C-alpha cells in the first residue's frame, strides 16, 4: 500500500479531449518524490526541442508530492512547470493554498496537460472522476468572478479552483496561475502557457485523504511545530508578513530601490510590514487583524498570508484578493520609489484579479520608470503617463494596462527585456533581468551567493532557490546544529565568494530543490531560520511515506537530480554558460546608504561560476551536466 500519495497521474490531451491515467509505481515516486522533479521528468520526455512555449507542443505539468495533503504545516503546495514564454528556458513556479491538498484528496498526484482545446474549457476532477467542461462563459472573467461561477455551477462551495485570469488569456508573458484568487504560481509565465491551451481552470474536490504510514510520529512532528512557532523566527513573518523585513533591509542597505540603483529608500517605513499590520490589514481599525487580517494554507499553523481591506479613498482593495508580500511592496514600492502602501496594495489586487506575477510586473514597471526618468521614454511612449519616480497613480494605471494589454501596457506585457529590445535607445542598461526574468527584491551586490543563483538558476532569477548568505555569515552561530547537517561550521566573511561559500550555495540549492520537489513551504522547512530543519524534513518524509531508510543525503540527491534535469532541458534548447550572465547594472556601484559603492567584480564572478560548475559536476566551459553526472544521478535516459 502507498502511504501519502495516490499512485495515479492524469494525462490530458486538450486537442483530442482524451484522458489517460498512469500508475508509475513506487520506484518512480521514490526517485523523484513529486512536484518539480516529477514535472521535469515529463517535460524532458514530452516537450519536443524547440517547441513554441505558447504553442500546442508545450506541456504544462501541475504536480504535488508524496507529502501533499498530510496534516502538518507547510505541505500544501503545487508545482506548475512548462517551457517558459518569458525566458525560453525551463519554467517552474510553486504556489500554496488549499487547492494542492484538495487535489490530492481528489485522487491524483499530478496532471500532465498537452495540446490546445478548440474553445475555452476547464477541467473538473472529483473523487477520481474527470471531465472537460465548457469555459466560454468564463473567458475574460477576473479570478474572483470565475472562481465563484465555477463553484456555483458545480454546486459546491468547497471546490478549490486553480485558474488563470485575463492576463493569462492575453498571453502576458509573466502571467501566473492562481488559487483562492490570491495564491500564485507566479513566476516564469505559467499562466500564459495555460491560456495558450485554452484552459481556464482546474477545479477539484475529493474526500480521499492520504494515509500516513506513521500517524503518531507525524502527529508528534506537527505538534512540535505548533508548540514552537511562537519562539521561532517565522513568528514575525507570520504576524507582520514578509514585509516585516523592509526595515532591516533598509538599515543594512539591501532594500533594492530606484530600479536596483540603490539599496536604500527614504520612504521605507510607510510600506513596512509593521505599518501594514497597523493600518490596512482587515480588522486593524478594531485591533482584530490577527484574527481577520491573516490567512493560511491547508493544515498550516503559521498563517502568514496577508488579508488587506481598504474601503475608502482612491485605492479601495477587496480582501478576497489578499495582500502584498515583501516582494510586492518592493517591486511596486521601493523599486519605483513609491511610498504609498494603499497604491501598492491596489497594484497587488490588480495582479491577483487579472493573474500576474507581482515581481516581474512591478520590476518591468520600475524599468519603465528609470527609462522615463533618464529621458529615454517620453509621455508619447507611455500614453501620457508620468513615470517620475514615486508616481503611485501612474504605477497603478500601468499595472492595469499591462493586464489588459492596452497601449504601452501591451509592450510591457512582453516583459522588460523584450520591451527594452523593442524600444532600444540604450534602455537595455536599465534591465535587471536574468535569462529574461526580472530580479526579486534580494540584492546580489550584498548577498553575493545570489550572483551565482540568479545567473545560473535554470529558470532565471529566483530568491527561493537556495539559502541566502547570512546563514553562513554572521548568523551561523544561531544555526550550528542545522547547518552541521548540511556540512557547514565555518563562518564566512560578508560579501565574500569563497570556495566554502560556493559549496554552501551548491548544498543549500540542492536542499531547496528537494523542497520544491517535495512541495514544501520554504518558510516552514529549511536549513536555518525556518520552523523545521533538515532532520525534520527527513522525518516528515519517513513518517508520511513509510520509507524508513530515507536519509538527508537521499533527499539532497533528489534535489540535485531535479536541477540537473532542468539544466539538461535548457542545454537541449541551446542554453548554456553564455546565458548564465548578470545584467550590466550589477557591475556598477550602488548609490547611497550602507551599501554605497558596492558592486559585483566581473572577474570574481566568473571565477566563482567556474567553481560552482565544477562543484555541480558540470562542464566548466559550458555549464552543461556531464554524462558522468547524469549517470551518477540515474538520469542517463535524459541524453538517450
Amino acid at each position: 500500500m502507498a502511504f501519502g500519495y495516490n499512485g495515479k497521474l492524469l494525462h490530458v490531451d486538450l486537442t483530442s479531449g482524451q484522458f489517460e491515467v498512469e500508475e508509475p509505481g513506487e520506484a518512480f515516486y521514490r526517485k523523484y518524490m513529486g512536484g518539480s522533479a516529477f514535472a521535469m521528468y515529463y517535460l524532458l520526455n514530452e516537450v519536443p526541442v524547440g517547441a513554441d512555449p505558447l504553442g500546442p507542443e508545450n506541456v504544462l505539468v501541475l504536480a504535488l508530492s508524496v507529502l501533499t495533503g498530510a496534516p502538518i504545516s507547510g505541505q500544501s503546495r503545487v508545482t506548475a512547470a512548462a517551457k517558459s514564454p518569458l525566458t525560453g528556458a525551463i519554467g517552474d513556479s510553486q504556489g500554496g493554498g488549499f487547492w494542492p491538498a484538495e487535489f490530492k484528496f481528489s485522487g491524483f498526484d499530478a496532471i500532465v496537460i498537452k495540446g490546445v482545446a478548440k474553445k475555452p474549457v476547464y477541467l473538473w476532477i472529483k473523487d477520481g472522476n474527470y471531465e472537460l467542461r465548457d469555459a466560454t462563459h468564463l473567458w475574460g472573467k477576473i479570478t474572483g468572478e470565475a472562481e465563484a461561477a465555477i463553484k456555483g455551477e458545480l454546486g459546491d462551495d468547497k471546490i478549490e479552483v486553480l485558474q488563470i485570469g485575463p492576463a493569462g488569456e492575453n498571453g502576458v508573458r509573466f502571467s501566473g496561475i492562481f488559487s483562492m484568487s490570491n495564491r500564485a504560481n507566479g513566476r516564469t509565465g505559467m499562466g500564459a502557457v495555460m491560456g495558450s491551451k485554452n484552459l481556464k481552470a482546474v477545479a477539484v474536490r475529493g474526500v480521499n485523504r492520504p494515509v500516513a504510514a506513521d500517524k503518531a510520529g507525524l502527529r508528534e512532528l506537527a505538534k512540535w511545530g505548533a508548540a514552537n512557532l511562537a519562539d521561532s523566527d517565522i513568528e514575525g513573518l507570520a504576524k507582520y508578513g514578509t514585509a516585516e523585513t523592509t526595515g532591516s533591509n533598509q538599515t543594512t542597505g539591501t532594500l533594492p530601490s530606484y530600479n536596483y540603483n540603490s539599496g536604500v529608500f527614504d520612504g521605507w517605513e510607510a510600506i513596512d510590514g509593521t505599518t501594514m499590520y497597523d493600518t490596512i490589514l482587515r480588522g486593524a481599525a478594531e485591533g482584530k487583524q490577527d484574527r481577520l487580517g491573516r490567512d493560511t494554507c491547508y493544515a498550516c499553523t503559521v498563517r502568514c498570508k496577508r488579508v488587506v481591506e481598504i474601503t475608502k479613498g482612491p485605492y479601495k482593495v477587496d480582501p478576497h484578493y489578499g495582500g502584498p508580500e515583501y516582494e510586492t511592496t518592493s517591486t511596486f514600492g521601493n523599486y519605483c520609489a513609491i511610498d504609498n502602501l494603499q497604491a501598492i496594495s491596489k497594484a497587488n489586487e490588480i495582479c491577483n484579479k487579472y493573474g500576474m506575477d507581482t515581481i516581474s510586473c512591478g520590476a518591468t514597471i520600475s524599468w519603465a520608470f528609470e527609462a522615463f526618468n533618464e529621458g529615454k521614454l517620453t509621455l508619447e511612449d507611455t500614453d501620457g503617463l508620468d513615470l517620475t519616480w514615486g508616481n503611485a497613480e501612474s504605477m497603478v494605471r500601468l499595472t492595469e494596462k499591462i493586464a489588459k494589454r492596452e497601449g504601452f501596457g501591451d509592450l510591457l506585457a512582453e516583459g522588460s527585456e523584450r520591451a527594452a529590445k523593442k524600444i532600444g535607445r540604450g534602455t537595455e542598461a536599465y534591465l535587471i533581468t536574468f535569462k529574461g526574468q526580472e530580479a526579486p527584491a534580494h540584492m546580489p551586490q550584498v548577498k553575493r551567493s545570489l550572483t551565482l543563483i540568479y545567473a545560473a538558476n535554470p529558470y532565471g532569477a529566483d530568491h527561493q532557490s537556495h539559502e541566502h548568505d547570512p546563514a553562513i555569515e554572521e548568523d551561523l552561530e544561531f544555526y550550528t546544529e542545522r547547518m552541521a547537517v548540511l556540512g557547514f561550521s565555518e563562518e564566512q566573511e560578508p560579501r565574500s565568494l569563497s570556495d566554502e561559500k560556493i559549496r554552501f550555495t551548491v548544498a543549500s540549492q540542492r536542499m531547496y530543490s528537494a523542497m520544491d520537489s517535495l512541495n514544501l513551504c520554504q518558510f516552514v522547512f529549511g536549513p536555518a531560520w525556518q520552523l523545521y530543519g533538515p532532520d525534520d524534513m527527513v522525518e516528515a518524509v519517513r513518517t508520511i511515506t513509510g520509507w524508513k531508510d530515507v536519509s538527508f543525503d537521499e533527499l539532497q540527491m533528489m534535489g540535485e537530480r531535479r536541477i540537473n534535469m532542468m539544466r539538461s532541458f535548457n542545454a537541449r534548447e541551446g542554453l548554456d554558460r553564455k546565458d548564465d550572465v548578470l545584467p550590466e547594472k550589477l557591475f556598477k556601484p550602488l548609490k547611497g546608504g550602507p551599501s554605497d559603492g558596492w558592486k559585483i567584480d566581473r572577474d570574481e564572478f566568473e571565477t566563482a561560476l567556474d567553481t560552482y560548475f565544477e562543484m555541480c559536476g558540470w562542464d566548466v566551459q559550458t555549464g552543461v551536466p556531464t554524462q558522468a553526472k547524469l549517470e551518477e544521478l540515474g538520469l542517463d535516459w535524459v541524453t538517450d
Partner: protein
Amino acid sequence: MEIHLQLYSVLRERLPAEAKGRAVLQLDEGAMLADILEIFDIHRRVVISVNNEHETDTARSLSDGDEVKIFSSISGGLQVSLIE
C-alpha cells in the same frame, strides 16, 4: 540622558500594545546599546540603527537624544530540532 527607541515587528511586543513599539528611555550617561537589549531581554539577532545609521557594535555608547531603531531579523530563533 533621553533615548528615543522604536521597536519593530515582534520586538515591539515587549512594550504595551498602545505604545506601538515606541518608548523614551531615561538612561545613565555612558549607557550602551547592549544595555537596551538587556532591558528588553533581546537575545536574538537583531538589526539596529542609531540615528538612521546601521550599527553592529552593541558596545557603542549612546548620547542624549539618540534615536535607536531595532528590527527583528530572519535569524536567531530556534536552533534545536525535534529530531536528535
